[in-house]
C-alpha cells in the first residue's frame, strides 16, 4: 500500500450495538492491508470498538430513530488515523479518566484502554454538540516522526 498519501475510507453504521462488530472487522482489515503486526491489528480493533461503543451507547443504542455513527479511516504512509463521530449529547472530555479507576468500578475502562493502545488520542466534544474521537497508530519504527 506504499505510495499512497492519506487514503480515506468512510463508514456509516446505525447507532446500534449489534453493528459495532462490522466496524471492528473493517478496522482490522484496513490495518492488515497496511501491514500492521497482528498485535497492532488487535490494538486497533479494540480501540475502534471502544470508540464505537461510546458513540453508540451515548446516541441511545438503537432506542429510536437515532442519527448514525460516522467512522473515517485515514491511511497515511506511516500511520492509520480513525475518527469516530456521533451526534449524541456530547460531554466534557476533561471529566474523563486518564487511567483506569483505582477503586473496583464496573465502568470507566474504555477511554483509558484506548489511550494505552494507540499513539495519539484526541476527543472533541461539548455538551449538546456530539462527539468526535480521533486516534492514530503508527507503523513500527515510524512513531512520532
Amino acid at each position: 500500500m506504499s505510495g499512497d498519501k492519506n487514503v480515506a475510507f468512510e463508514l456509516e453504521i446505525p447507532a446500534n450495538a449489534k453493528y459495532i462488530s462490522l466496524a471492528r472487522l473493517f478496522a482490522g482489515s484496513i490495518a492488515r492491508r497496511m501491514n500492521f503486526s497482528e498485535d497492532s491489528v488487535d490494538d486497533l480493533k479494540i480501540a475502534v470498538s471502544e470508540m464505537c461503543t461510546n458513540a453508540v451507547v451515548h446516541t441511545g443504542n438503537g432506542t429510536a430513530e437515532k442519527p448514525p455513527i460516522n467512522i473515517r479511516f485515514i491511511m497515511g504512509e506511516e500511520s492509520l488515523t480513525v475518527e469516530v463521530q456521533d451526534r449524541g449529547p456530547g460531554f466534557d472530555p476533561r471529566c474523563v479518566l486518564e487511567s483506569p479507576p483505582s477503586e473496583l468500578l464496573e465502568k470507566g475502562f474504555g477511554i483509558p484502554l484506548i489511550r494505552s493502545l494507540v499513539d495519539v488520542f484526541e476527543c472533541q466534544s461539548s455538551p449538546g454538540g456530539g462527539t468526535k474521537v480521533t486516534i492514530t497508530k503508527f507503523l513500527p519504527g515510524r512513531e512520532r516522526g
Partner: protein
Amino acid sequence: MVDNEVREGSELDIALEHVGDHSIVVLSGEVDVYSAPKLRDTIKNLVEEGRYRIVVDLEDVAFLDSTGLGVLVGGLKRVKHHQGDLGIICNQERILRIFRITGLTKVFTIYSSREDLLASIKGA
C-alpha cells in the same frame, strides 16, 4: 481455504459446567457491548441459584472489550458479597493484555488452563 471471518461476528456462545461447588462459564466468540448482557445474565442467574464460586473460561474468546471487563468486575463484586470468588481461565496473551492494562490482573484469580483450575480445586 477456510473462511473464519464469519466467526468474527460478535456472536457469543455460553456453556455451563459444574465441578464440585464451582461453576465454569465457558465462552466462545466475542464479548462486546452487544453480547455482554448475555454473559451478565448468566452470572446473575448463577448467583441467584446460590452458586458463588464462578470461573469464566476465556480460552475460546476472540475479542473482549471494556464492556466485557465491566461485566466480569460486576460478577466478582456480586459473588464477593457472598464470600465467593470469580476467576478466569485465560492463557491468551491478546486477552490477558487487556486485564493487565486495566489493572485487573490483580483483581481476578487467573488460571492458565482448565487443568490448572481443576488442580487448584482438588488441592483446596
